[in-house]
């Protein structure tokens, strides 16, 4: 932007702000400041909707990464069916809504003083805090994992980014006839159908580029934890002899030097190790004292997303202790964000929040073009004090199809835009 254009832009921004303030806010006084930690599907959506629904609220979004990289669709990057640039988006557009986007890392939360300490930006105070920290990994449950990961001998690629690129490179370099082992922890974990989608699309890549290569799925669970029948049908129809599935195979360690996954009963060697460690709420949730369940997840009031452990802090997305039949998915994080945004607007305006009805839709690719889907609708049930799946609603795809594949891409582009555009 040259100097003149920049001036014109600033002038216009100022007039847009004036229009916004004069046109709709009954008062120019801020109703309070909300700090949002984490700019993923939950946090970015919350920041945008808070400003949409009450522009008198000051919203600061703190995100440590320079851009958003989507976990949904990232398995297609591993298969070479799309690129990192296609699943990445900037945070710039959120500024149009008046969200202050700060690239920084939250180190600590003081819930009594209502402040967050940032790595670079000092302390910032809040009236309400929104935590959307995603997951972090419990490396201690896998002996040798961290060392092997630092040596580049094992990858999780369960947060889209550098590890996604590295796993794609490993798969490209793997010889035809090689084996990639995908190890899955006990549920619950981020994106229940994700590991099976990953196995499917890597198999699709092998079928075309390395026909003698194999995908070995080592699942700690007794069966696929999501869309089991649809995945199994796809594997039988499309990838017989390529995907081998072993249930009840919980990893307990990794030997990077010999590229071995240690299971409870035996050891499995492979050419590429993709071991997904057990997961819990992200580190900042631990530091803020929000873990309530199994020392892993954050229990919330599903009418407001407010933590049951610490008042004034709302927790979104994968970090929450899921309500019954609710997956840790991007669609759910998006909806959690809207519950929290509506509740915070109500609370800061002295109104009682009202319960929300939300829906989930998750697509999984089983080949380059074909996808399968699961959907559900969840509503507040006062007797049980939680969100429950509405009887008779929801379900899975009748069969895999290219139509669902098209809708999967449309869903992704739309939910990215709903969070960031």
């Amino acid at each position, binding site marked *: 932007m040259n100097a003149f254009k920049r001036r014109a832009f600033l002038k216009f921004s100022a007039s847009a702000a004036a229009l916004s303030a004069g046109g709709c806010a009954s008062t120019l006084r801020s109703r309070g400041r909300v700090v949002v930690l984490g700019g993923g599907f939950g946090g970015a959506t919350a920041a945008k909707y808070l400003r949409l629904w009450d522009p008198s609220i000051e919203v600061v979004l703190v995100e440590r990464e320079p851009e958003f990289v989507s976990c949904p669709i990232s398995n297609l990057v591993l298969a070479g069916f799309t690129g990192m640039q296609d699943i990445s988006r900037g945070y710039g557009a959120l500024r149009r809504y008046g969200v202050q986007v700060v690239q920084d890392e939250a180190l600590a939360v003081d819930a009594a003083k209502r402040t967050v300490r940032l790595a670079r930006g000092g302390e910032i105070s809040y009236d309400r805090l929104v935590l959307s920290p995603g997951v972090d990994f419990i490396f201690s449950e896998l002996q040798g994992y961290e060392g092997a990961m630092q040596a580049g001998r094992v990858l999780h690629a369960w947060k889209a980014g550098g590890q996604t690129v590295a796993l794609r490179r490993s798969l490209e370099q793997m010889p035809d006839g090689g084996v990639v082992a995908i190890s899955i922890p006990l549920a619950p974990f981020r994106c229940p159908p994700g590991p099976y989608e990953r196995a499917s699309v890597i198999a699709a890549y092998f079928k075309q580029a390395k026909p003698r290569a194999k995908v070995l799925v080592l699942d700690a669970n007794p069966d696929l934890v999501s869309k089991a029948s649809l995945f199994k049908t796809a594997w039988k129809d499309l990838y017989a002899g390529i995907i081998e599935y072993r249930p009840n195979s919980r990893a307990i360690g990794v030997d990077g030097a010999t590229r071995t996954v240690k299971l409870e009963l035996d050891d499995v060697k492979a050419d590429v190790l993709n071991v997904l460690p057990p997961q819990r709420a992200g580190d900042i949730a631990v530091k803020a004292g929000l873990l309530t369940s199994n020392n892993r997840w954050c229990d919330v009031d599903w009418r407001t997303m407010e933590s049951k452990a610490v008042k004034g802090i709302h927790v979104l997305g994968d970090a929450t202790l899921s309500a019954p039949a609710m997956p840790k998915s991007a669609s759910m994080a998006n909806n959690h964000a809207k519950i929290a945004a509506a509740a915070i607007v109500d609370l800061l305006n002295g109104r009682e929040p009202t319960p929300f009805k939300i829906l989930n839709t998750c697509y999984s690719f089983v080949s380059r073009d074909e996808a399968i*889907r699961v959907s559900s609708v969840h509503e507040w049930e006062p007797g049980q004090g939680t969100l429950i799946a509405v009887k008779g609603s929801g379900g899975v795809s009748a069969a895999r199809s290219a139509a669902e594949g098209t809708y999967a891409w449309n869903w992704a582009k739309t939910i990215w835009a709903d969070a960031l555009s």
Partner: protein
Amino acid sequence: MMLRLLFAAVLACAMPLAGAQDSSSRNLAATCAICHGTGGQAATKDLATLAGMPRDHLASQLRDFRDGKRPATVMHQIAKGYTDAQIEQLAAWFAALKR
């Protein structure tokens, strides 16, 4: 860029005003945005823009999805989660938004 800024400013104005009158419809409709876009404005050409859709048309489509009269890939399963009253609420909300 300017048009988009203006759009954002107008949007930021329109939604909370309407929302103050009827946050329950606003909240019910917000969940649709994961596929149909923020404020019912489709983000891709393959999905319906719900904003500005005639109220009776949208309500009857949702009922037809729910009752199995209109085939669908996903909407038949989603529509079953909503009551007649909620379908009317959604239809009225989206009909009142500018396309």
